[in-house]
């Protein structure tokens, strides 16, 4: 019976530690709320009666076309086209989060595959893949993005492709490094001595041990991708209007100097971006701590004690 309880204890412990981390929990809660908002953006639109692209030229704009500040009808104010910022933020969450998730996921998959293969096989395969990673890292990202968009025109797919193309290398390097040391571990040798093939070793023996870096780097990559998209929007290379993304909203506010007048156009998307990034980072930290009990012990032991350094 006790064995039944203990069966899951490693996973359970991780979850317990995760729950014990209050900051991590708050971050997680925020992200969950955000996802709910993103998924339920249509409901929000229905609730407010404002769609994301609808322009309220009478109530949402002054006669000279200035946006109106937060009020009863528009809780977060309107933008320069008289659209409801709140509703657009909700839809923006959808797009920004999808970009974040999809880009990080794709980049993670590529990075993991390449890192795994390079690290595991070593030799010329590693040399070729390693150089390929170096090559990608030697490409001035934004410059090439600029050129690419100049040629193909901006689109969500292109933004995604570029973000993915330039961000898988981080994961690839980390994974490769880990695999290099993992494949020297005796349990790999043990599998080999039992006749396991390369694929079996990579998938059954090495991959399960990469959980921590994969989760940590993927969570870190999500906000980075979201911000990257914002920068692209600023340079006019982002997604296609009238679809809103947070970065695009910020870029619109920035581009027409409208932020000097309409603070709400910067504040709300900025806040959304800030909280999301913070949450992902805090969550990433929390997961890392939870996955790596060593660091938890270290932290919690030292938390209670006086700092090592104080001498007086």
């Amino acid at each position, binding site marked *: 019976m006790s*064995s039944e309880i*203990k*069966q899951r*204890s*490693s996973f359970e412990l991780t979850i317990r530690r995760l729950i014990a981390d209050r900051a991590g929990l708050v971050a997680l809660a925020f992200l969950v709320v955000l996802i709910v908002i993103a998924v339920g953006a249509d409901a929000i639109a229905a609730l407010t009666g404002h769609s994301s692209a609808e322009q309220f030229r009478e109530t949402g704009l002054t006669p000279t076309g200035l946006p109106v500040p937060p009020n009863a009808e528009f809780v977060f104010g309107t933008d320069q086209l008289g659209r409801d910022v709140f509703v657009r933020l909700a839809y923006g969450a959808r797009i920004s989060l999808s970009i974040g998730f999809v880009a990080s996921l794709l980049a993670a998959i590529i990075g993991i595959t390449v890192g795994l293969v390079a690290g595991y096989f070593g030799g010329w395969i590693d040399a070729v893949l390693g150089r390929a990673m170096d090559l990608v890292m030697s490409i001035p990202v934004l410059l090439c993005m600029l050129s690419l968009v100049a040629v193909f025109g901006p689109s969500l797919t292109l933004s995604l492709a570029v973000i993915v193309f330039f961000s898988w290398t981080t994961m690839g390097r980390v994974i490769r490094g880990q695999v290099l040391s993992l494949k020297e*571990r*005796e*349990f790999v*040798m*043990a*599998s*080999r*001595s*039992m*006749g*396991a093939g390369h694929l*079996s070793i990579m998938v*059954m*023996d090495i991959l*399960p*041990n990469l*959980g921590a870096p994969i989760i940590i780097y993927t969570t870190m990559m999500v906000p980075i991708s979201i911000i990257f998209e914002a920068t692209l929007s600023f340079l006019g290379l982002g997604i296609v209007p009238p679809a809103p993304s947070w970065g695009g909203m910020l870029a619109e506010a920035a581009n027409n100097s409208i932020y000097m007048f309409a603070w709400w156009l910067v504040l709300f998307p900025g806040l959304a971006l800030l909280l999301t990034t913070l949450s992902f980072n805090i969550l990433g930290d929390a997961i890392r701590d939870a996955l790596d009990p060593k660091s*938890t*012990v270290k932290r*919690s*032991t*030292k938390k*209670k*004690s*006086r700092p*090592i350094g104080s*001498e007086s």
Partner: protein
Amino acid sequence: MTLLSVQNLTIDIPTGDGDVQAARDVNFSVQEAELFGIAGESGSGKSVLSQAIMGLLPQAKISGQINFQGSDLLKLPPKQMQRLRGNRITMISQDPLSSLHPFYTVGDQITEAIRTHRETSARDALAEAIEVLGRVGIHEPGQRVHDYPHQFSGGMRQRVMIAMAIVLRPALLIADEPTTALDVTVQAQIIALLNEMRKELGTAIIMVTHDLELLSSVADHAMVMYAGNRMEIGPAEAVLRTPAHPYTLGLLRSSPSHDVRGDLESIPGQPPSLLVEQKGCAFAPRCALALEICSGKRPPLRRFEDGTQSLCWLENKAERGRVAAAPVPSDDEASQSDIVVNVSDVRLTYGGQSFLSNKPGVEVLKGVSLQLPRGTTLGIVGESGCGKSSLARIIAGLTPPGSGDVQIEGESIVGLDRRAWVEMRKRIQMVFQDPFGSLNPKRRVGSIIGDPFRIQKVASGIDRKNRVRDLMEIVGLNPEHYNRFPSEFSGGQRQRIGIARSLALNPSIIIFDEPVSALDVSIQAQILNLIIKLQRELGLSYLFISHDLAVVRHVSSRIVVMKDGQVVERGDTQTLYDNPQHPYTRELLAAADPQYRNAGSAPVVDRGLIA
């Protein structure tokens, strides 16, 4: 004169899971120029104790007294403690490889120690560093002082650590397992060196170790710890020849001795968790002589005439004397002609073949030949780096030999195609040194042991599960623990998992590559017993690799001695012991025999230390 006296020392280390009670009411004292030994299983609190004396446990809750030269170290302000540390009290630790800063030269690190405590010019400090390096036996210290730690061998690094520890002529030197990470031959030299320092400088030495044999030969007084308790203390001779406490006795009985083969008497079970409050005797659950009272009440202190004190309910010393071990089946019964492993003139060179570098490769194996008859054990000994593991990997088919041939049951394994190779796995299996590293930490034990079935596509589903449970039973694991992760097992249990896995496919040959060197003596005995039992019951043939002669001797009927990639001597165990032919074999034997390690008579050959 008493240099250090520790009284009622209790140490609690707070962790996320609760307080670890790493030391409980420990008392002892150390005289000037004395060698005081502390022994005990892993996790018994030896290191915590020595760090507490050094004042390196700022986060711990410490009570009691540590009197050093008249002042209580626990009450000393941090600044003053800092002044003592590294100056009057110094420390060398177990792992010389990681205890030196990799980015500073050896000289820098020694002069830093000097200049922290004494006003000297950099130049004088360097001269002093060179002098002390010479004293610990580093050749050409004037040049080597500018080298980085990685340019030194393990033994030399430990010498540097010692140099750093004695350069300020401390009153007390704490050596926390100073030789565990080193080769037997190097070990002997380090011990000799420490003894010499003790005599020359009058430094008292606290030596922490779990090598009881070693302690009995060098220590003046010895203390045995278990789960944070001082179980026994007294003159080393007395404690280790006629132990009072059942725990000490158990430890001694678990050690493979040089003259007896057969089953060892191991201490069953494993040490308790230090997170749990101890009510009675911590050792009670594992103690063969336990009384009812043992688990309920804290045992009293018993004093004996020979000066030993023991923390035990038994009024008399625990029984001394060995149970006659069941004899290992004689190899003569096995037909010498049925050779299951035949290695002929195997050579191996690492590197060198690549066209990118024109460096010559390192020749690791220089023509090794050996035969393993069916149902017997062939022991392979040799110092670290002599190519034992490389040889094992070649025989196991994991590394192709550079040249030469390996035949398993008459079939060459060189140049097999993938299918035949996979098929060959069923005949020969391997058990690895590190019970922590050889099990995938992220997979459940059931699936680890079932791996051979999965890989070889032998059994699946319920069938596989049942077979795994059977295997677990064979090696003495609770089949209920099928779904646990390796981290939930102790070292000894993990090694059992490894053995169970190697048995899965009913191999005829198992290669053990240092299967017990990472384990405590008590656990080691359990595993050795298991190995011997399995051989008896399943008629397996073993290749047994170790650098510990006693262990090899205990299990093997024939022994091969390797040095620098070559076999220098071979023969059946008894003959080899009684009449070693090769000087290296003699050296090994000498280094392993405690009688040789006493100061003065140590055959200090500086071989291997100075590269």
